[in-house]
């Protein structure tokens, strides 16, 4: 400590500059005192940047039928999820109008005979039963959206999620998608803000 | 960047490794009783300890020490293989004080005992846990060969450095 060497005069001067720094500090807070608050009064106001927020994932409805998802049911999202929070259930169903694909195959076969080689008896399609997201476990990493080979999944912009129990966050994404498609004012419409 | 101090070091095996691939410039395999001397040499050469990591392998525990230097960066890795039956390595915490906690952590996770450690009590895990969570099941353990750029099993080779008493 070089306090002794500074002498009384130096000490007084140091104290005075110290005191002045306090006054400067008061000036800074005093200056802020008159400014407007920067916070958002939550229930009355909401933030305006939710369009970039990535909330729980949602299924993308197909362009033709908003009640049907674009999902091809490959299960990639299920596999890639680190926390195992996605569960896709599906079953095989025979194509209802088996005629139409048959009508198309000759056209394709003409150009590419190789493809004809395994002739399918009856075309079966996967039909979605349920697409569940256990949001309790989800860490919003986005690996599922990234791994989706088509465009079946995307992030929603829901930030205002609250519930009374864990079961409130076991989402049936299919139902949510349909609810969203049928009523624009339903849950998950924050993005328009 | 001079690594002459490594060349002087008594060790089972010294390899200059590809930094781009392994992130380490030198890899030195030492015997448990040579650890202290190696750590001392690293200290004298101006190195500081980065971390101590343990890998559970078929042949035993591979204790990996990483050292780095402030002025001439270049990671140096020391490796010690100790058998499962007697997982004991001398502590280096009296040379590199930072190793103290790393050793305690390794003791927590693997049960590797660092002999001479001043205070080898649990660090991250509860004191009454009773098992070591990072131990692998015997059938899950990979062999030394299965982990690339680890040189061949040093334990099996009767080395010329056998006459050294610590």
């Amino acid at each position, binding site marked *: 400590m070089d306090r002794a060497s500074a002498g009384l005069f130096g000490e007084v001067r140091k104290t005075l500059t110290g005191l002045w720094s306090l006054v400067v500090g008061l000036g800074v807070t005093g200056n802020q005192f008159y400014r407007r608050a920067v916070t958002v009064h939550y229930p009355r106001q909401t933030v305006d940047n939710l369009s970039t927020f990535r909330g729980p994932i949602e299924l993308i409805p197909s362009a033709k039928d908003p009640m049907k998802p674009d999902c091809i049911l490959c299960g990639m999202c299920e596999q890639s999820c680190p926390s195992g929070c996605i569960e896709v259930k599906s079953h095989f169903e025979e194509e209802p109008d088996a005629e139409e694909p048959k009508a198309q195959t000759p056209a394709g076969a003409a150009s590419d005979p190789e493809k004809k080689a395994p002739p399918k008896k009856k075309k079966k399609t996967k039909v979605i039963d349920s697409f569940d997201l256990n949001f309790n476990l989800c860490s919003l990493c986005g690996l599922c959206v990234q*791994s989706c080979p088509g465009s079946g999944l995307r992030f929603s912009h829901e930030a205002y999620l609250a519930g009374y129990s864990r079961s409130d966050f076991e989402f049936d994404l299919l139902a949510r998608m349909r609810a969203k498609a049928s009523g624009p004012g339903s849950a998950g419409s924050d993005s328009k803000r | 960047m001079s690594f002459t101090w490594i060349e002087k070091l008594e060790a089972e095996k010294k390899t200059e490794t590809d930094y781009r691939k392994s992130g380490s410039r030198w890899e030195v395999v030492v015997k448990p009783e040579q650890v202290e001397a190696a750590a001392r040499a690293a200290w004298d050469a101006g190195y500081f300890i980065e971390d101590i990591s343990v890998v559970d392998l078929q042949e035993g525990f591979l204790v990996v020490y990483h050292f780095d230097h402030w002025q001439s960066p270049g990671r140096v890795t020391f490796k010690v293989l100790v058998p499962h039956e007697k997982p004991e390595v001398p502590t280096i915490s009296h040379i590199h004080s930072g190793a103290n906690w790393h050793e305690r952590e390794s003791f927590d996770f693997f049960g590797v005992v660092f002999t001479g450690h001043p205070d080898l009590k649990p660090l991250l895990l509860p004191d009454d846990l009773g098992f070591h969570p*990072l131990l692998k099941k015997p059938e899950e353990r990979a062999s030394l060969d299965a982990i690339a750029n680890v040189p061949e099993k040093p334990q099996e080779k009767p080395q010329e450095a056998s006459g050294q008493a610590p």
Partner: protein
Amino acid sequence: MNPEQAFRNLAGDFYTRSLQPGPTENTLILNMGPQHPSTHGVLRIVLELDGEYILRADPVLGYIHRMHEKMGEVKTFAQYLPNMGRVDYLHALAWNWAYVGAVEKLCGVEVSERAEYLRVVTSEMNRISSHFVWWGAYLLDLGAFTPIMYAFDDREWLLDLLQIVTGSRLTYCYFRFGGVSDDVTPEFVEGTLKWCEHMRERLPMYKALVTDNVILRNRCEEIGPIDLDMARRYGATGPVLRGSGVAYDVRRAEPYSVYDRFQFEIPVGTGAGDAMDRYLVRLAEIEQSLNIIEQALKTLPEGPHMHEKAPKRLKAPKGETYFAVEGARGKIGVHLLSDGGKNPYRVKLRAPGFSNLSLFAELVRGVLLADAVSILGSLDMVIPEIDR
């Protein structure tokens, strides 16, 4: 059992008892934490006090231990990514980077040029946001309540920007093997440059309010000096080391990514290595990070945000690697071993705070309780990172 005996049994656990046999009589064993306002989360320090002077200190860790290293062994390489945002929640992107970098190094995955720049930008932004939290929290430790609000005001803007590109605000999971998960929008670039300007106007206010404040200076100067020997013995890195006057920064020492293309300085302390030095180094780092962000954004190359050859499903060869990056708290290292399986064989996470905190016990010997708080704050602890 008489009540006194029962009470004695009640008092203390394994860790207090392990400190119990003191060298002198009439000392006080004080448990600071795990619920204590200035231990930042759940650090616990068992102190032996003589009056208000600390005779011995013994940090007790593990209250938020989650065994991330074990999780790494049971998840695939890609599935381990979200864990990285949770090791150090304040500089999540550096951990993202350390792990992604290690895997890329191991598997020889190339990263697209644009992604490298985006990584630099977002990681530096994250560094600034981390320093803001530290700054506010440190002043809370010292008893000033207002600065954290100003810091959070600026940080909110920053988080809004990071949200545009990463989609989240705290526990980012943005980096991918071979690139980043999303490209940036022009408004992000514009907004960030604007924010950088705003910050340059704002930093003098920080200085006037806090840095020049005589009370703060008296609380920080000559407090907790770390000399070079001690820093090296404990393997201190980051601002803690730079505060002691060593210009050791992984961004320079082992240049990774495109850091060698940017002009920036490594702020170092005056040599005293006290809390004030560490404080000043961190504030200076905010400015340097602003420099890097501006340079990177102005020279942001076009191109994809993921390398074309980036593997959709990662196949790791067997091998071992170590990759280090410079986090807000120091050198973050990931020691990764693979036996060629789909999961890592072993992941060792080197948390900078772990080494930095380990010197705390030696540093606080003989200081006042209030100084211990100041020292602890100046080390910038993030307990989840230390406990992993």
